[in-house]
């Protein structure tokens, strides 16, 4: 039997939950054609500014808009307090873990995380062994994907420690909803998120190499305009007031990174790179990369430049490693984890695999290294053929998969073709770690626009919502 679905505004017919009372009144009063008009306004705004998400190779318009749902998702101050304390704790533990696996490896020696899960992992970069990074921070910008299944029940679904994207949507969604609904902002005290880019700049400057004497030069590095998140890269560089560079704009001389400017070479101290490890340095990783900078790894290891996020940080967002995060919190911080993990079966382990094989039709099975909603099986939604096919893949390489129960993700009122209706949502808050760890109140709420769908990924037609954290 399917578990009851928690609606964040309140069940159909029941009293709305306190945070949603004003919104519910407002929704009850506003005619649908006014909502339609506002949605069109929003779409024009996104197109004109060029806030697009590139999907290449599928035909049609390559520069698409991620559907923006105009109805906000609201979190109470107390709910957020709990979440944000949990996020800071979790990211501190993740950073400690990454520093440890490239350093003393105590967690492996203590037998808490099996060595082979780490050392034989494709995302483990042996080039990083023994490298000392400022403040021991590896994942400077983390995006933690969370879901809610009840009033007090939040789960962490995934840790994104490499290059979490979407923060520009968090900021632009707020911008547009303040334009469209000033009346709602008068009636709600919504905690602002605008300072995110200042915080980001501070965070990046705080991890400048030790030998950087003056104001550190921070840049954002993008693979270029054809990257799906290019808009975000340029947005962040712009908001921070720093240069947006591509690989060919940088070069390394005597282990120091410079950018080519109209006034000659200029030294670069911190690179917020949105280029994957593999493409970063053709001398250290993929030799065919045209996006990277030859010699940058050497400069990095010499401590002359810092990269955010660190090379090798991907070891912490591996889905098999994920299962150990609560233990990491206890091991490194000596604290009880505030945020819960979704119960997870590691298919690489015999007993777990047996269970998963028997219950495929009820479970969600994911590739350990997959992302973006590709390569996963949603048991309850899959056909018999799809399940059989997946079982075969699972049999061949079980260690590549994990499985989780199908969670009854909470729903939020969403404006869709049929009118205002509940749709499933998740939440990705962004955590910044440098000299200190901080979170802006909010995050990116992703919403599955199709009825009953649980897939919120933007590459799979998911949309976004503005996320409001109320001030106490």
């Amino acid at each position: 039997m399917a578990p009851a679905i928690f609606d964040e505004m309140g069940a159909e017919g029941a009293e709305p939950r306190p945070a949603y009372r004003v919104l519910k009144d407002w929704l009850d009063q506003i005619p649908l054609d006014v909502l339609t008009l506002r949605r069109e306004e929003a779409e024009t705004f996104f197109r004109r500014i060029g806030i697009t998400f590139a999907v290449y190779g599928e035909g049609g318009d390559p520069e698409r808009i991620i559907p923006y749902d105009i109805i906000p998702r609201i979190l109470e101050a107390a709910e957020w307090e709990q979440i944000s304390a949990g996020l800071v704790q979790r990211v501190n533990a993740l950073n400690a873990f990454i520093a440890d696996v490239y350093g003393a490896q105590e967690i492996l020696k203590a037998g808490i995380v099996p060595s082979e899960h780490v050392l034989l992992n494709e995302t483990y970069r042996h080039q990083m062994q023994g490298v000392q990074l400022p403040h021991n921070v590896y994942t400077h910008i983390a995006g933690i994907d969370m879901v809610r299944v009840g009033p007090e029940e939040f789960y962490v679904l995934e840790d994104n420690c490499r290059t979490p994207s979407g923060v520009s949507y968090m900021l632009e969604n707020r911008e547009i909803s303040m334009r469209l609904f000033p009346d709602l902002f008068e009636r709600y005290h919504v905690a602002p998120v605008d300072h995110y880019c200042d915080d980001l700049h501070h965070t990046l400057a705080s991890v400048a190499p030790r030998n950087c004497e003056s104001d550190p030069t921070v840049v954002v590095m993008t693979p270029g305009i054809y990257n799906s998140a290019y808009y975000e890269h340029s947005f962040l560089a712009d908001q921070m007031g720093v240069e947006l560079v591509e690989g060919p704009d940088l070069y390394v001389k005597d282990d120091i990174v410079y950018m080519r400017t109209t006034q000659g070479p200029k030294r670069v101290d911190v690179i917020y790179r949105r280029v994957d490890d593999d493409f970063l340095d053709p001398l250290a990783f993929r030799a065919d990369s045209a996006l990277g900078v030859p010699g940058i790894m050497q400069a990095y290891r010499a401590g002359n430049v810092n990269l955010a996020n660190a090379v090798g940080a991907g070891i912490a967002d591996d889905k098999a490693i994920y299962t150990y995060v609560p233990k990491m919190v206890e091991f490194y911080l000596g604290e009880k984890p505030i945020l819960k993990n979704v119960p997870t079966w590691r298919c690489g382990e015999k007993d777990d695999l047996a269970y998963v094989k028997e219950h495929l039709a009820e479970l969600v099975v994911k590739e350990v290294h997959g992302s973006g909603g590709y390569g996963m099986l949603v048991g309850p939604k899959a056909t018999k053929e799809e399940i059989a096919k997946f079982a075969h893949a699972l049999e061949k390489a079980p260690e590549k998969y994990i499985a989780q129960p199908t969670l009854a993700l909470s729903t939020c009122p969403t404006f869709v073709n049929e009118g205002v209706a509940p749709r499933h949502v998740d939440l990705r808050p962004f955590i910044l770690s440098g000299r200190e760890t901080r979170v802006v109140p909010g995050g990116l709420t992703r919403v599955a626009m199709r009825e009953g769908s649980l897939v919120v990924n933007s590459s799979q037609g998911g949309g976004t919502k503005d996320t409001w954290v109320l001030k106490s």
Partner: protein
Amino acid sequence: MLSRTADNLYWISRYMERAENLARILRVTDRLSLMPAIAESDGNEWHSTIVVAGLEDMFYERYDEATPENVISFLAFDPENPSSVRNCIETARRNGRAVRTALTTEQWETLNTTWLELPGWNENRVRGSGLNRFLDWVKDRSLLFHGATVATMLRRDSYFFSRLGTFIERADNTARIVDVKYHILLPEQAEVGGGIDYYQWASILRAVSGYRSYNSVYRQGLKPWLIVEFLTLREEMPRSLASCSLGIKESLDHLADEYGQRHECHRMAGQIHSRLRFGQVDDIFRQGLHEFLSEHIENNNRLAYEISRAYLF
């Protein structure tokens, strides 16, 4: 600033300016082709348009004859012609996307909206009276972009690189437009002959938005020597060679002040400018108008090369 950014800003301006000039040239050609006098002459205005654009070889590789349809299609929409209006707009917008952070919101939105509206124009829509609407649109979009640049950009390096692109491109285009008339060498102070000749000179002035300004400056009818003087040596005429070279020199001076460094391009720009500033139209005709213009186009190209060398484009 990043050299790549400077390069992109410079080329965005060049491409927008180029699109506008193509629209101006096409408009004049279209207008001339409607004159009964032209119909009687052997000269093919559409052919000379291709010559002005400097694309004769590429055009005749792709088309047999310079019919109006072929020329419009080639100059306005041909995806194979890197300088077609369509490609100019697409390239400008692509460059703009790559340096969004260096553009003001107004500049970016102008570029982006232009690009979003572009697919609405095609060969079918510009038949008949549609052509004028299209050419108006191109000119308006370009003027809007230049207006946004002048009205919203901070006066620092990025602005001066943008302006350099505009002036370098415009100097080249004006020289080319005047050059169509090189074969006509009338005696000093002669009145423009009737018919074709009159319309051709008038059309050149119109192509550079200079017909009415010419009359208000000279008040003595269309005279080839004066028209040439107006379009080459008069600084108050914003599309003249002298005005463009002043713009280039001033932009480069600002960069030198900001960066505290002068390069070979500064010397060249000063030389080109003083030659025009102190030049006399008699000397131009003595040298030969075509020779003078060819030399100017070549110097302009060399200057563009020196600019890119100085700032590491």
